[in-house]
């Protein structure tokens, strides 16, 4: 947090501080106002429900990734995890005729397993998380493409119908995604595990000395992240109705940008799931949805995405006012053991 400014400082400094601490709200209001004025169908109930529907998979994935980011680490394999797990699931249902419910369990277990693999490489082999997940991101996508022969495979009809299931006017997957965010929020705020994640994110060494089992918590966070990536993948594939080679591609970057926009510091130890990660998802989805309504060139979306990440990160670095940091990777000891008391 910024230190409290003395009254002798110029009004510009105070304005700047106000802008930095309320930047998100200001931008959100401006964006919504702009779209409402320029696209008449933007601020309608149907569009807002559709917007949430489209955002549901990202909510699940962002919730899991947030846990890892709060630890000061990153998992960029989430998109490939979503793709591989759902490819396996789809193939099981279509080729082997496995029961959808059992398939769901297998898919979720596979997601957790991939998370465990990442966690194992990071914790036991002590390899930097970014390189680890860069490797698994490419490797897992390779496996998935090999399995599906990079073709589109449709889901069985009765499973596909679930994608548009509604309760009243609201899509079921919105409720599922919000419930997941609420659960992760509770885990983060109300459990020892959640507090230990924040402790590691603030300072892994200190956390270890205070008795936090850093390796175990790190491992668990990666497992949860993999599990939620699989859930996000399921929500995506059920919405789309088929699995294809592009499922989850670029998703890791979208998820990271969502997290940064949501005010969760990439240095770790700061931020929240609710409202943090959720508002990040909403912001990105609102911008995308609005561009759509304005009839913007679809090829421009990716550019806009990149620009948004850049701006959000710049604001993040201003807010955090971090000390000089040119190193991409700190060689921190992930598996530092808690210091035993001397006899």
């Amino acid at each position, binding site marked *: 947090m910024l230190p409290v400014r003395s009254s002798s400082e110029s009004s510009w400094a105070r304005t700047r501080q106000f802008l930095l601490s309320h930047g998100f709200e200001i931008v959100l209001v401006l964006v919504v106002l702009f779209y409402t004025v320029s696209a008449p169908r933007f601020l309608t109930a149907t569009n807002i429900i559709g917007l949430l529907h489209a955002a549901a998979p990202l909510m699940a994935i962002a919730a899991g990734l947030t846990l890892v980011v709060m630890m000061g680490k990153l998992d960029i394999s989430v998109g490939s995890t979503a793709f591989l797990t759902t490819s396996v699931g789809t193939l099981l249902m279509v080729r082997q005729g496995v029961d959808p419910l059992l398939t769901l369990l297998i898919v979720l277990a596979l997601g957790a397993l991939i998370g465990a693999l990442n966690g194992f490489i990071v914790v036991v082999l002590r390899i930097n998380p970014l390189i680890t997940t860069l490797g698994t991101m490419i490797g897992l996508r390779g496996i998935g493409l090999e399995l599906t022969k990079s073709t589109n495979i449709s889901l069985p009809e009765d499973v596909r119908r679930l994608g548009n299931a509604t309760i009243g006017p609201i899509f079921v997957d919105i409720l599922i995604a919000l419930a997941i965010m609420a659960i992760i929020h509770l885990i983060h705020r109300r459990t020892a595990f959640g507090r230990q994640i924040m402790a590691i994110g603030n300072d892994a060494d200190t956390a270890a000395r205070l008795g936090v089992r850093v390796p175990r918590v790190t491992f668990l966070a990666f497992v949860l992240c993999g599990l939620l990536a699989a859930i996000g993948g399921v929500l995506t594939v059920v919405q789309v109705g088929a699995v294809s080679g592009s499922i989850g591609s670029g998703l890791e970057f979208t998820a990271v940008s969502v997290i940064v926009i949501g005010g969760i510091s990439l240095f770790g130890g700061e931020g929240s799931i609710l409202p943090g990660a959720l508002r990040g998802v909403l912001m990105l989805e609102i911008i995308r949805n609005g561009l759509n309504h304005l009839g913007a060139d679809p090829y421009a979306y990716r550019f806009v995405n990149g620009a948004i990440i850049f701006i959000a990160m710049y604001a993040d670095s201003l807010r955090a006012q971090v000390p*000089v940091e040119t190193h991409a*990777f700190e060689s921190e000891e992930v598996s530092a053991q808690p210091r035993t008391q001397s006899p």
Partner: protein
Amino acid sequence: MSARSIPADAPGASWLRSAFTRNRLLELLPFILLTIVLILLALFVPNFFNSRNIINIFVQASTLGLMAIGMTAVMISGGIDLSIPSVMALSAIVGAMNLRDGGSVLGSSLLMLLVGSLAGCINGFAVAYLKMIPFVVTLAMMTIATGTSIWITNSVSVPVVSEELFSLVLDRTLGIPRPIIIMAAMALIATLLIRRSVFGRWLYAVGINVKAARVSRIPATRVVFGAYVVSGFFAGLTAIILSARLGAASANMGNDGVVLDIVSSAVVGGVSIYGGVGGPLGAVLGAIFITVISNSMNMMQVSFFTSLMIKGVVIIAFVFFDSLKKR
């Protein structure tokens, strides 16, 4: 402890020990692996050691090697540049469009170098002056560059048709294709610069310990900025060669697989992801190693997707060896 464990009456044993310490072994590992791979290839892939295929491998490795040299500069400073391939693609597209619209070969080539260097300047400015995290800055740059490429081309590849450019870049000098010569020359120049120039020494100092470097009055901010500009410049240089070789420029030139190849090349070549260790020559050797793997898997008819998988494993394994070295 260790002094006592070496028997005083066995000088031969201590010589043996120092020759086969774990670190020495780990340093030699890439070469040992390369030798094993080459022997296996000689045995199982009949056409591998034919002169055409060897030259082909070196030509393929030249573009990867050039990008790996750029990556080395950034990695020695302690950062990482994920945007190299996408910036390379963007530079190639801008240059190819200029060429298509009647621009000269020289102008288009300079334009490619300019676009690359400019993207490097933005990365460097964000990392060095705005103190943003290199990984995420270059991730954003990667998205922006790919986005721009897709946007301005509508995802269609731009043909590069210019005999002048082809002969300039692809002709042979003394029987060796020019891309190989360019790569070798650049590796040499980069090695000299990094070993003999003040900038090179500063770069290592910043990579080893940025705070100590600052205390010793090294302009760390400018050095880090410079490293990213170098990396962008090499992306532009690669764009010239690759667009001539492919006869086209498209957003797909810089897909995710290329990033992995560059990082793998550098890591296999002994450049540490923690900064301060390694050099351009190693990175180029690493690029050749990676190309040999891709090429041989291709010749053994392993699918592209499986090769992605194997490369993912290779990079994690090498970073693991790297971390063993540190301990």
